[in-house]
């Protein structure tokens, strides 16, 4: 790891004043489970780390039935997992955190870090850049080692998949992300937080280099049945191959409206409006759930090695719907 300077501010104003205008020069440190690995591999070479863990106002979980849930950016995955209100009202979030099958990662990793972690794409992690292009700017991924890459939103130049565990559930639940920067606070929808970069120097989210995530706000679930289902290669620590989160508003046995969001299949968390439209007015059954999975993946296009992910994603949608309908945690 290259040498850097370290600062540990105690307020969010201090934290953003310590950040810079340029990506890469200064990085935000929270749980460290991603950033320090990137630095050891020289993929990240910051000159300064701004450790935000002492900014107390970024901590804490608050839930009230009328206003919903507020997660401080520093809430750890383990704190999220252990929270009884989240388990009851937002099982999609608890199930997503439970999918991070390493207690060590859950104890250190934060919800803000889950959103801001960099892609797990091995080209990126190997120092070939976010878009992994050769000297002539041709993408290496489409005909390369792409078995874990995107099956949706993969017409280029980005082929990696968004690595966030929580994002699909947050988008399905209608959450918003609060951001703080030199000009004060701003708020964006969880779906708008993620963007597909067009150049290697860009990031996968709308944060500016001198902004930090402060809170995640989730509106009241108001009885919406919600769930996350992940398909992983291993039961132990691994990132999913495909995941889906759903939130179903019910009217009796019928679905009145649905949100379906896929994870780990595209450079951004991928909403599936076709499946949402299909589910509206239906009564949940295994067949309906399966058909919803098929319609969610209708636009999918495999790269040379990842056709199998299309089937996994269909199954993730199907099982997330069935899990939500059963209300099983």
């Amino acid at each position, binding site marked *: *790891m290259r040498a850097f*300077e370290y600062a*540990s501010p105690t307020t969010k104003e201090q934290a953003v004043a310590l950040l810079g205008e340029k990506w890469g020069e200064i990085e935000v440190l929270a749980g460290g489970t991603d950033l*320090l690995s990137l630095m050891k591999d020289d993929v990240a070479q910051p000159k300064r780390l701004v450790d935000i863990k002492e900014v107390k106002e970024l901590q804490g979980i608050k839930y009230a039935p009328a206003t919903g849930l507020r997660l401080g950016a520093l809430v750890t995955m383990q704190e999220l997992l252990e929270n009884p209100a989240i388990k009851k009202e937002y099982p999609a979030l608890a199930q997503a955190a439970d999918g991070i099958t390493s207690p060590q990662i859950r104890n250190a990793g934060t919800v803000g870090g889950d959103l801001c972690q960099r892609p797990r794409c091995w080209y990126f992690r190997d120092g070939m850049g976010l878009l992994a292009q050769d000297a002539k700017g041709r993408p290496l991924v489409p005909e390369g080692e792409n078995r874990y890459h995107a099956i949706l939103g993969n017409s280029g130049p980005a082929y990696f998949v968004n690595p966030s565990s929580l994002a699909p559930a947050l988008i399905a639940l209608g959450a918003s992300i609060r951001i703080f920067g030199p000009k004060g606070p701003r708020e964006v929808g969880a779906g708008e937080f993620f963007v597909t970069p067009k150049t290697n120097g860009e990031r996968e989210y709308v944060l500016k280099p001198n902004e930090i995530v402060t809170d995640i706000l989730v509106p009241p679930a108001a009885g919406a049945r919600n769930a996350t289902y992940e398909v992983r290669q291993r039961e*132990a620590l691994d990132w999913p191959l495909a995941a889906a989160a759903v939130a179903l508003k019910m009217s009796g046995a019928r679905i009145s409206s649905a949100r379906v969001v896929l994870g780990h299949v595209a450079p951004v968390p991928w909403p599936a409006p076709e499946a949402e439209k299909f589910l509206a007015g239906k009564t949940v059954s295994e067949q309906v759930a399966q058909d919803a999975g098929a319609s969610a993946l209708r636009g999918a296009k495999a790269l040379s090695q990842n056709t199998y992910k299309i089937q996994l994603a269909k199954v993730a949608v199907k099982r997330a719907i069935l899990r939500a309908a059963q209300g099983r945690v």
Partner: protein
Amino acid sequence: MARSRDPDKRPRKGLSRRAFLSRGAGLAIAAPIVTGTGLPAPQGAAADVKILGPGKVPVTLRVNGKTHSLNVEPRVTLLEALRTHLDYTGAKKVCDRATCGACTVIMGGKEVYACSILAVEAQGKDILTVEGLSASGKLHPIQEAFIEHDATQCGFCTPGFVVACKALLDRNPNPTVADIEKGLGGNLCRCGTYVGIRQAVLSAAKTMKGGRTDA
């Protein structure tokens, strides 16, 4: 407005001596002083925030109940500080990327990967390494159980596993096999001693029942 013929009253192109001095004084205060890495020193809201490094900084770590003072650069991880500066070589450096668990220590009551925490961040927290389990030469029941159930082969992952087991049993003194598999999901054994480890945890849980044997 008519242009003044008096050169002293004409707007000047450069700076007057007075203006130069006053602005110069202002610049001296606001001049960007750079830090050791060449970045502008923090200003405004962050003016009083201390910047540590990139050179060595004093760090105090509390390991297994003992306080240690050392001088390390901010880039030194807790694992490196433990192993190469304090000679606690129980925690192992294997993947060094927060995925294998060989470096597991308990910090503030929670199991963490020491490879992915900086030594400067670990200050003020109680750190327990595998060395802290076998106080006064007597093995911890988890260690006894690992021997009893042949839960090691090459042994390189073992200290991390033992510490992860300790954290698991602290949280859940009576785990099921499923709880054990999940609770140890952050540790890898390339030799595949998982069967022995499962048995060791079950048997250690029995031994430890009725009174925690915290080191």
